Every structure is written in C-alpha cells, then in structure tokens.
C-alpha cells in the first residue's frame, strides 16, 4: 500500500483496507461495522429491487435458534453464533485444517431512510439468510405526468 496516500503510519495496511471497505458501505448509506464482532463474517451482498432492499448474508451451518436479525432505529443487526462441529464421539482426533470461522458474529448496517422496518421478510435457505425490507410506499419511483 502506498503510505503517501494515507499519511503517516498511524494505520497499518490492514486498517487501511478496513477503512476502504467501510467507505464502500458509507457510500451506499450502509453504516460501517463499529459494533461488529469477528469482522468479515458473515459476508454480505446488498441489492435492491423497485420495491425492496435485499440483504443476503452467507452463513452456512448456523442453527436457527442461534441466529438473530433485528431492526432498531434503522439499523439492521445480523448476529448469532456458529458452533464448531463436535468431534467428541471419535477417538484420537487430529486436526489438519480449521478454516471455517466459528463463534459469535455480528454485522450491523444502516438501512436507507426509505426502508420500512415494519415490512421485513427473512428466510434462511441453504446457509444463506435472505432479508427483504420493503421500501416505504411514498418513496417508490414514480413517473410524473407533465401537463401541457
């Protein structure tokens, strides 16, 4: 990373990278993850249709009773805990790889103003949490008639 762009060494490269990710979120109106634990998990894709905002969180292997999604004052929080698979029923277990993150996680994002928190739908399918937040009726794109 070119340090002349980012000033002196107050930031490590990793912090600079994190700032860039936060910048992306800020530009969409999604708040940076100040409150996030286990940063980066779950990864999230954000999109929209004319009627809704769509958030897709990739979190395979999470028990439904360990998964929570809440909206509070325009902040959407996806949190929970992924348990590691127990190997206690086996003898002489040797671990070769542990790439999957386990433990508690939290992602927080600010929903745009025209999101209606009372009309939210959430589904957990194949390890993906789909959250659809409807847009407020008044803010949907409408064409305006031009009179002569």
């Amino acid at each position: 990373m070119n340090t002349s762009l980012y000033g002196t060494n107050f930031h490590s490269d990793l912090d600079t990278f994190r700032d860039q990710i936060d910048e992306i979120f800020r530009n969409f109106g999604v708040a940076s993850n100040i409150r996030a634990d286990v940063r980066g998990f779950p990864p999230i894709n954000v999109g929209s249709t004319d009627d809704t905002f769509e958030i897709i969180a990739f979190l395979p292997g999470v028990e439904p009773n360990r998964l929570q999604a809440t909206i509070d004052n325009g902040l959407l929080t996806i949190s929970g805990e992924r348990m590691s698979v127990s190997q206690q029923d086996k003898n002489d277990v040797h671990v070769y790889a542990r790439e999957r993150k386990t433990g508690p996680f939290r992602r927080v994002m600010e929903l745009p103003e025209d999101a209606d928190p009372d009309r939210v739908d959430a589904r957990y399918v194949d390890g993906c949490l789909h959250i659809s937040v409807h847009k407020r009726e008044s803010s949907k794109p409408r064409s305006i008639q031009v009179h002569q």
Partner: protein
Amino acid sequence: MAVNTRTASTDVAVREQEREKQLHRNRNTVAPHVDIFEDAEGVTVIADLPGVPKERLDIRVEGNQLFIEGEASIQVAAGFKLHHAEVLESVYRRTFTLSREIDSTGIDANLKDGVLTLRLPKAEQAKPRRIAIRSA
C-alpha cells in the same frame, strides 16, 4: 480434424458439450473453507458451501483425487440490482488427494444449511491395529 469430411451432428453436439464444460471449468471459482479432522476410523471433511442446493453439488472420486464442486444459486426477485457484493464468485471448487488407506467406495456425504460433511472411512486393513505378540 480433416477439413474435407463432414462431421455428423452428434459430433457437433459432443463438441459443444465439451466446450461448455471447458468454459464452465474456466469460470472464476473460489475454494470453500474446510475443516479437516482425522480419527482412528477415517477422515471428516466439513466444507462451507453457502447457497449451494443439493442438485448443484457434485462430488467425485477419480483415482486418488476427490473433487468437490458446487454452484451457489441465490433466488432473487425480478429487477434485482446488486449494489455491494462481498461474495462475487458462485462456483465453489476444491480438490483433495486421498491417501491409499481411504476406502473411496464408502464415502458418505451430507449437505445441510450450506455445510457439506464428508466422511471418508479408512479401509479395514489400514486402521491402526495392535499386533498380537506370540510367545515362542
């Protein structure tokens, strides 16, 4: 391929299939995160494959190689526009080389909530055994 011969329509279909497969193989893939454990009876491989339904998961053993390939399929509504993506690739692919002690005919695969659990048993004769010592 000789220029002056006419290829049968079936050959064209086969070539198109091969080309499709080649293109598919060259798409951007990502290696899924795995946990691998070994115990006395066999090896357990746990892979994160979020968004991959059972019908898009392909697990193959060829010789001593284990191929895992799955394509994520995310249902979205009509007119969906992606604004921010932390996951861009939709094809998960990873290959493992199995040691000879693995009994490849006894592999068990389970896919639940985007997590693939593979159980690779060791062949009977490869399991650790005590050797009885006879006294002369």
